């Protein structure tokens, strides 16, 4: 379960989030949408532990992970995350990027897991390519595969369908949902266009000027 309780966040003098609360039950899929600059990415970063809230608290799986005075590091939150700009490491191959979250696993398990994920997202022929040799859509799929690789308990997706052409969007979202269900992940995603993921989400929130409303 992801629980955000009365969270506020300031950047300088600007209040980006104003006492935002949401609750996403375990193994369910939630959607956050809203106009640009409404605080969607900020909220996702707070849940990931990349930023600290100025007010309120965030709980993952029932455990308090973020408060204004204490924060559990991202590594110990069992999350997978797709960043807005993919954030692929340019010096690693596609396979290297996907396997980064599996460095503690055995080499054999790592290889098999990477192969399965790359196959699933039609990336196997690109395994030895570097991010600079990928198109925007291919990079996006690599970022999703990387987020899924360590079987995260919580999956945070910032515009996962950006840069993907229409034909591919349906397939990718289908794969994400299938994987998430298989590993029991709770998924919170951001999308500009709620209609794209209409059929798969269980909960939907709209963020506008830092205020949240459940739709």
């Amino acid at each position, binding site marked *: 379960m992801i629980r955000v309780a009365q969270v506020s966040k300031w950047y300088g003098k600007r209040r980006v989030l104003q006492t935002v609360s949401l609750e996403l039950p375990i193994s369910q899929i939630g959607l956050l949408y809203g106009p640009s600059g409404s605080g969607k990415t900020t909220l996702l970063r707070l849940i*990931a532990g*990349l930023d600290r809230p100025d007010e309120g608290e965030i709980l993952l799986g029932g455990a308090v992970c973020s408060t204004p005075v204490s924060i559990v*590091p*991202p*590594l110990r939150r069992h*999350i*997978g*995350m797709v*960043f*807005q*700009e993919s*954030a692929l*490491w*340019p*010096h690693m191959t596609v396979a290297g990027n996907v396997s*980064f*979250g599996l*460095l503690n696993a055995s080499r054999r398990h790592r290889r098999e897991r990477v192969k399965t994920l790359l196959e699933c997202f039609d990336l196997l022929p690109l395994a030895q390519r570097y991010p600079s040799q990928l198109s925007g859509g291919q990079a996006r799929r690599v970022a999703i595969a*990387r987020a899924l690789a*360590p079987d995260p308990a919580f999956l945070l997706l910032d515009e996962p369908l950006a840069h993907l052409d229409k034909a591919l969007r349906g397939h990718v979202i289908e794969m994400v949902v299938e994987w998430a269900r298989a590993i029991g992940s709770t998924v919170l995603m951001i999308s500009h266009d709620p209609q794209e993921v209409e059929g798969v989400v269980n909960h939907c929130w709209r963020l506008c000027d830092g205020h949240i409303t459940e739709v």
Partner: protein
Amino acid sequence: MVAVFRQLSPQASLSLGYGARRMTLLARSFGWALLVGFLGMVLGVVGALALWRCRNGWGVAARWLLLAGAALPPYAHILAWWSVFRFLNRGLSSVGLMGLPQRGGLVSLWVQMVAQLPLVAGLALVGFLSVETSLIEAGCIYQTRARVFRRIVLPLARPMVVAGGALLFVLALVDYGIPSAFQFPTAALEVFVEFGASASVGKAAAVALPVLLAAAMGLAMALSGLRKAVLMPGQPTRLVSPPLGPGTSRVWVLATLGLLFLQVVLPVGSLLLSVKSWQNLLDALVGAMSEFRTSLWTASVAALLSPLIALAPAHILATKRAGLGVWFLLLVPVAMPAALVGIGLTSLWSSLAVTPYGTRWMPVLAAIARFSPIAIPVLVAQRRRMAEPLIEAARVFARPWDVWWRVELPMTLPGLVSAACLVFVLTLGELGATLIVVPPGYATLTMRIYTYLHYGASEGVAALSLALSLICLLVGALGFVTWRLWSRAAMRVGA
């Protein structure tokens, strides 16, 4: 370079005879310079990590103070470490232990490394800051901070880290100031010795050739990272908590303080202690007034002219897509042994009818030849950080000359000031080329200090070094402040 190497004949090389002594000297110099480069790079990474941690309040002040330590001339470090070793050895002998060596390769390696630390640490820091925040954050989700640093930050910053080490190697190879003070003969010094003994440009060139080749290789290794650092557009990415290796923040704060101590507090403090009284400082300055004037004149004129000379190449490097070859050609004078620059200038000008040879312009020319290339990266970096739309807007209304004269040049002024400050500071500490080109009856303060240094440290030397160090620190600070103020102003207009 052409003036020197056109006189390099096979006969000169053969008559010189690379005997066992010279071969050993060459091998030892290369090995020593490699060690300086490598260990300096390691220390630089530690320093950069410590500085990366210093992001708020006093930490930022410590960061700038440490980097400003680059302005300190080498003899400030030489004198400081002499005092330290003397002090330590007194303590060791009082308890019946053997003293530490006060001369030789090991000591000069340490001092050379510490003296050039801001350069390596600064480049490594730029490397760390150039890694995109999102790449670090993405790593932190899956792995420990130490692993993220090792597998993501360090590989991405590697070109700049290596550039720092390679530049340190080049500087250690071509300049003999510090090793000669610790009686460690190097190949760069041998160039000067050979020219002094034979007065043959060809023979000096033959001695210098392997040094030049090795230094050019070092420069080539540094270029990729240096170019990346210089061409990095605008402000580095938003700072996040850096993914440090093991250890608590207290360890890194202590590391920063330790570096600050080594780099600034120790040299300046030791000079202050050695001078003993203000009267000594005054006496030493009055006694060396002529050298003081020569030094200031030489440094001022070189500082005025070098950035202007560097303007055109900097413009080419900043606006055209110049390859590494062009960068190499423009910066290769940095890899020339200092003595060779002096020999080349002497050889070139002494054969002409109208010539500055034998005048006080010769040291200025030597400084320009050595340090104009160093002004180029400063100007390129500043040009790259200019608000391009402002220049493009001017192009709509004016001819290219007017755009350059009325818009680009005024916007380049802060870069010119910073480059001038850098050249001024470097010229004040220059010795290798000046020794060869200085006309009879003239001497710079650095020459006088080094002459005295060979008779051992004294209050007089410390006083002169202190005066020069303070001037260097002030001018260095002026350069830094100009750059910082401009950077902030440029960011406000959206550069």
